[in-house]
């Protein structure tokens, strides 16, 4: 019979809620709390030999010690798999489940599995490196979670081949595997369309990334006194592309001084973008980054001033994660320099 060690928090161990979240890690023989549901799902294929219980605050506030102590506890039982949670939408519990599962996998080299709600912060932190089953956002989803987690845990423990995220129910982990579909693309597309038209459920084969939403900023009070910055994803850079910004899948952005530059010309600037016909932007880069008219506005007093630098990257298959990281960095600089508004141009 396969041996399982299970990790749960103080709440699921029935020790208490927030007021008991400080309890340090302990190990108990056999099953505690939600382990019972796993036991039923495992039948006689696997057995939970021990359960680690740890307070969520304790784990997160004493992460290094907790990790070390728990690994020692788990090691003694020499399990075939380590299961943490599921944590649903409990943030600290999710982070604890992900952290300890990752540590057990790295240090003890045994398979691990956890489960949580997709918006749990632990999901983004660990879904690319360990298997995390997607669950509902509250413990009401326990039965469903166990139904997906238990068979996947058995497969992992037996070192069987793991199917795709859609088949097994874990969160997509960024790994791509080539395979042959039974039906050809046109047939699948038409089927999807018919389902959509009939209001029936269908699953896209090309999901869009999740984009966040931010509340709109208040309007600029006095635009004639405002400092305005230009930012572009259209790849405008000084001639020669000094920072070697990639023509697609950009891994960086550039910051360029336009102090005294009244007009972008063919001789001085160009586009580095490889995703649109560059002829027009190279001929007159103001068509993408309108420095000439912004200078005019500045002179006429329609704006306070044009910010001394512009920022540019190439938005061509660029990872959302990269783009977000660029913006986080330069938004800080713009703010620190007292920029009041940004005009971002895209091609």
């Amino acid at each position, binding site marked *: 019979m396969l041996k399982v060690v299970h990790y749960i928090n103080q709440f699921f161990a029935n020790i208490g809620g927030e007021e008991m979240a400080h309890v340090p890690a302990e190990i108990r023989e056999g099953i505690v709390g939600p382990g019972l549901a796993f036991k039923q799902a495992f039948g006689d294929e696997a057995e939970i030999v021990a359960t680690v219980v740890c307070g969520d605050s304790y784990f997160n506030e004493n992460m290094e010690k907790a990790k070390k102590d728990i690994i020692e506890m788990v090691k003694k039982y020499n399990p075939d798999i380590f299961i943490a949670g599921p944590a649903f939408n409990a943030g600290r519990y999710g982070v604890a489940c992900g952290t300890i599962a990752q540590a057990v996998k790295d240090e003890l080299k045994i398979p691990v599995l956890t489960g949580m709600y997709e918006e749990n912060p632990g999901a983004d932190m660990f879904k690319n490196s360990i298997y995390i089953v997607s669950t509902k956002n509250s413990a009401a989803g326990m039965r469903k979670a166990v139904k997906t987690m238990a068979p996947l845990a058995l497969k992992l423990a037996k070192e069987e081949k793991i199917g795709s995220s859609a088949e097994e129910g874990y969160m997509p982990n960024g790994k791509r595997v080539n395979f042959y579909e039974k039906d050809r693309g046109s047939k699948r597309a038409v089927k999807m369309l018919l389902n959509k038209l009939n209001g029936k459920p269908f699953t896209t084969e090309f999901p*869009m990334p999740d*984009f*966040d*939403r*931010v*509340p*709109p*900023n*208040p*309007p*600029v009070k006095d*635009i004639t006194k*405002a400092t*305005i910055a230009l930012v572009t994803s*259209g790849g405008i850079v000084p001639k020669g592309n000094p920072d070697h910004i990639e023509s697609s899948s950009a891994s960086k952005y550039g910051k360029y001084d336009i102090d005294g530059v009244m007009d972008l010309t063919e001789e001085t600037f160009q586009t580095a973008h490889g995703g*649109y*016909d*560059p*002829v*027009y*932007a190279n*001929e*007159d880069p*103001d*068509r*993408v980054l*309108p420095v*000439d*008219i*912004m200078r*005019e*506005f500045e002179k006429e007093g*329609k*704006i306070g001033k044009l910010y001394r630098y512009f920022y540019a990257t190439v938005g061509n298959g660029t990872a959302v994660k990269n783009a977000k990281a660029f913006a986080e960095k330069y938004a800080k600089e713009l703010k620190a320099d007292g920029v009041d*508004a*940004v*005009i*971002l*141009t*895209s*091609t």
Partner: protein
Amino acid sequence: MHMCTIVPISLTVGANRIVPTIAIPHPLGDPSLSMEEEKDIRRKLLSRALKALQTEVSEQTVFED
């Protein structure tokens, strides 16, 4: 605020103030026109951008004029 030609993309990624532009390879210009006419277009679009920046919005808004 965001100036772009493919407004649905801008709406998808979450821009709050959007000014639609001319074309993908030349959002703020039009090579079929004379230099002066092109600058007029650019002036018009950027004036609209300044207007957008001075307008209170509570949700994603496309400034068509």
